[in-house]
């Protein structure tokens, strides 16, 4: 009888029982969930500001909606399209130049057989990744100086003309791309090296026995072996086409190159935090975010359709 009672009661109390039995598991979730909600989702709620004439006095709940006025203003503003173009041009350059370099570098590193040489090379290649942008930017800023910079003096020594790398529209993108290669190209090889090391050596041996030459081995074994890693990195890179990061570009920006150096991150910072146009700045940020999200989901879908590796 007592047993029957327990069976009948079970559905009613099972959730409570389950919660009690696993109480520690659920308690453990609290800090992480609190963090997630407070620092990730509450700011997402804050994007409502982009659709309001936000004022401090009234707050998000009291401020009135303004019928997309900020977005209308945005799309009609020349400055906004300048920022948009600058961001896209820079990240497209990174996609074309900075994306393939680590792949090539990893393929070359994979050919190195002398242990100490490989170790020293990798130590040097990874080092810049662990330096801050301030340190790297500081070095570049001083070495490219027109007065006593090493690079310009070297150019003069070789019979050239001094170049105003830091104070011109023409050279700004070059400096950004080059410093970005310096910091991240070596580090970027790591995921490809991991993929390369997981290719079975038996494949190469079998190919050698079958009389395959070097290039055939690279084409038919090495490249297919890293293809899925390349695709995943590419999806992430395309998803990030709207992002250029704040820390690097902010250091190299000045009045002389502002025509090409104003990108989304810096523009939202300037109009929002510095000038206090909160709603407008949030609208700019939201636009950038939405485009970024669409990009990543569509590239992921395309690679899925093509039957390749996908991110999720």
């Amino acid at each position, binding site marked *: 009888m007592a047993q029957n009672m327990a069976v009948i009661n079970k559905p009613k109390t099972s959730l409570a029982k389950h919660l009690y039995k696993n109480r*520690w*598991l659920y308690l*453990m979730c609290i*800090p*992480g*969930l609190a*963090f*997630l909600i*407070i*620092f990730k989702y509450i*700011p*997402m709620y804050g*994007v409502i*500001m982009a659709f309001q004439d936000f004022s401090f006095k009234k707050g998000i709940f009291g401020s009135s909606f303004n019928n997309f006025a900020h977005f209308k203003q945005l799309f009609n503003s020349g400055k906004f399209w300048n920022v948009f173009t600058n961001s896209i041009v820079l990240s497209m350059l990174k996609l074309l130049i900075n994306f393939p370099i680590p792949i090539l570098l990893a393929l*070359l*590193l994979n050919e*190195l*057989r*002398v242990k100490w040489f490989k170790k020293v*090379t990798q130590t*040097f*290649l*990874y*080092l810049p990744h*662990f330096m*801050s942008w*301030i*340190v790297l*930017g*500081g*070095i570049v*800023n*001083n*070495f490219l100086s027109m007065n006593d910079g*090493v690079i310009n003096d070297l150019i003069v020594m070789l019979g050239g003309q001094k170049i105003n790398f830091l104070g011109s529209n023409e050279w700004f993108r070059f400096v950004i791309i080059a410093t970005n290669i*310096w910091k991240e190209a070596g580090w970027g090889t*790591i*995921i490809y*090296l*991991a993929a390369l090391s997981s290719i079975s050596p038996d494949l190469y041996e079998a190919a050698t026995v079958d009389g395959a*030459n*070097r290039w055939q081995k690279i084409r038919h074994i090495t490249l297919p072996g890293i293809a899925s*890693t390349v695709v*995943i*990195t590419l999806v992430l890179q395309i*998803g990030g086409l709207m992002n250029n990061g*704040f820390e690097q570009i902010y*250091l190299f920006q000045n009045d002389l190159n502002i025509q090409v150096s104003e990108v989304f991150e810096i523009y*939202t*910072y300037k109009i*929002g*935090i510095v000038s206090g146009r*909160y709603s407008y*700045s*949030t609208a700019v*940020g939201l636009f950038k975010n939405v485009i970024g999200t669409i990009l*990543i*989901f569509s590239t992921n879908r395309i690679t899925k359709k093509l039957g390749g*590796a*996908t991110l999720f």
Partner: protein
Amino acid sequence: METVKKVSVKQTTHIKRGPDDYAVAGVSYLITGVFALICFIPFFLVVLYSFTPYDLYLKNHFDFFPERLTLDAYRMVIDYGYIWTGYRNTLIITATGTILSMLLLVVTAYPLTRREMKGRKLITALWVFTMFFSGGMIPEYFLMRSLGLLNTRWAMILPGMLGCYNLILMRNYIDGLPDSLEEAATIDGANDLVVLVKIILPLCMPILATLGLFTLVGYWNSYFSAIMYTTKRTMWPLQLVLREIVFEGSAAEMEAAGAADENLTSPFLLRMASIVVATVPIMCVYPFLQKYFMSGLVLGGVKE
């Protein structure tokens, strides 16, 4: 690791090398070697220049054995008070941030690996969404403001404390651990917290060391949150102080202070020395980083 070693020995001894092999090897050594040197030389030059008297530097930028060396720049940097408040702030931010970050990481990742926990798919999805979409700069600034955290060190610790990427790495790592130990402990009557602390945590040390070092370097190097959330100079982390010295006029300011001692050093030397002083701690952890970063940090999909 053992098998990899054996394999590479086998390849070099048993397989005959043709001319195309030598061509590929030659190109590989040349390009990687040159690339590595280009990456490294600037750091070498910074250290060299920080010890070279300015007049000798002007005479020849590529004199690797200058006839005189000087410590003047270092003396001035060490006397510059803001370097030390910066160091103090950065040390506090980095230490607190890294420890809290690792604690939060373990405690958040572990429940997500337990099949019996309801809602774990939802929580994972909510985290993954944050990889693609965020509130953006201004709403985040308002959050800090309304929490009353502007001009505090917490504003530089909290925002970056847990990211989705690390969470997924950690979750996958715990998922890969054998279930048997966990089950044995549960049968012995240990609750989930005890299982986490006594059984899971010790097994997670390798990945915690890896992610911990990366988090540490991240806190040490970042300056964006400091620019966003602080206006007081006493709250500045080291990187902001360094930025002011290297990019703006405070090398000249230091020089003006030093002029009283009739101990004039060029701003260029001061900048080089400041970079070295600010970078020493990273150089100290770099060997440890190298030991860990190849282990287990392989990019995979987000999917389960």
